[in-house]
């Protein structure tokens, strides 16, 4: 077995500590060590976006990030978007606009949408589509997802 490495991070607003095998991805640590199964393993190669989380304000494929590199970082996952203020406007829009079918891509899609809106609340349809290019959905054809992101952007404006 691999060496285990101590990590400490801010995870959805709280300090989290764990000892993780050095060969693990951040995704595996989030799912197995921290029981945050929202982010999904769907390709393991950074090609589908199902594992997207926000690290230090940047969206990343957590399947490509070494778990040891979580040390000292600030991480938001889909579970962290439902706060005392209620669910995130992106989550609400996904629910109401029909952007969810099987839902397997949804947590990654929502985190990427959250990131896009954090960077640019006045976002266009084309910018959303480019921004979601790394997130594969096999169910929806993306139309309702884009609609939901625009709806969330307007709700926040």
């Amino acid at each position, binding site marked *: 077995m691999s060496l285990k490495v101590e990590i400490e991070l801010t995870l959805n607003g709280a300090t989290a500590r764990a000892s993780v095998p050095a060969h693990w*991805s951040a995704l595996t640590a989030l799912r197995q060590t921290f029981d945050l199964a929202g982010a999904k393993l769907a390709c393991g190669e950074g090609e589908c976006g199902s594992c997207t989380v926000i690290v230090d304000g940047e969206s990343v494929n957590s399947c490509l990030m070494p778990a040891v590199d979580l040390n000292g970082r600030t991480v938001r996952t889909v579970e962290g978007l439902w706060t005392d203020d209620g669910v995130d406007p992106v989550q609400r829009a996904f629910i109401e606009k029909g952007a969810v079918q099987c839902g397997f891509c949804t947590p990654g899609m929502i985190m990427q949408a959250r990131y896009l809106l954090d960077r640019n609340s006045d976002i266009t349809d084309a910018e959303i589509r*480019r921004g979601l290019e*790394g997130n594969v959905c096999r169910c929806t054809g993306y139309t309702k997802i884009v609609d939901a992101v625009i709806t969330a952007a307007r709700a926040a404006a």
Partner: protein
Amino acid sequence: MSETASQAVPRIEAYYAPTSLEEAVEQIAAGDVAIVAGGTDLMVTANGALRRIKRGLMNIRHVPGLDGIAETGGRIRIGALATMTDILESDLLRAKAPILPATADRFASVQIRNAASVGGNIANASPAADMVIPLLCLDAEVELASWKDGAVSTRTLPITDYFTGPGKSKREAGELITAVEFDAQGAGGHAAFFKTGPRPALEIAIVSMGFMARIDGGTLSDIRIAFGAVAPTPIRAPETEKLLDGQTLDDDLIARALESADTEIKPIDDVRGTAWYRRRLARVYLEEELRNVLEG
């Protein structure tokens, strides 16, 4: 013996997170470490875990001086840890080397751009590495650091002479890519980046092309043409550059340039495209670009 089950099971016995360049290269010199920055290439082909891994894993993210994009003394320096997003959003590069942000815009997905580093894209030495194309056009130099006689030693290699084959380069085992540098002078002229695919970016190039030139009236000079995925390494097309240098474009010259470029590329058939199609695309891109220039 089964060949399907050849995946090595990862065993990492040491983890290093150096906080100085000295510490990093000294450890690399000691050997058998895999270097991780963005993780995007190291972790690819992984499935929830690292696969192609060495005994030790080194995270160089905390090494100072490896990030940032800055101009000093007429040279633009991009730290090895600079991400594709850093390049895409750099005001300095947009103003002075626009081919770099133009390429970053076509690089994989947002999530990958947020993680993938310039150093990693060079280290991977893929024949289709997008970011290498503009660096070839810019005549960039790759800065390598190593541990020699108890101190950090650096050398630079021109990127045009850096790659030796798919996944192979002149970087030696103990060396760490610390930066790429190029002259700001000449980096700001006419520039364009082309890449195949109906999807804007999330595609490994069947063919990519970078083009830079100074255009004076109708005359071209300081021409740099680079192609990706048409040879064992990303390449420049020096004969075609020479052919065009100091000339004024017309239909005949364009036709000769296309023929010239066709002799300079050595594409192969693979799962993404045939050699025939790669030749066709290289020709289409170069012709499109030359006509763009011709028509202003």
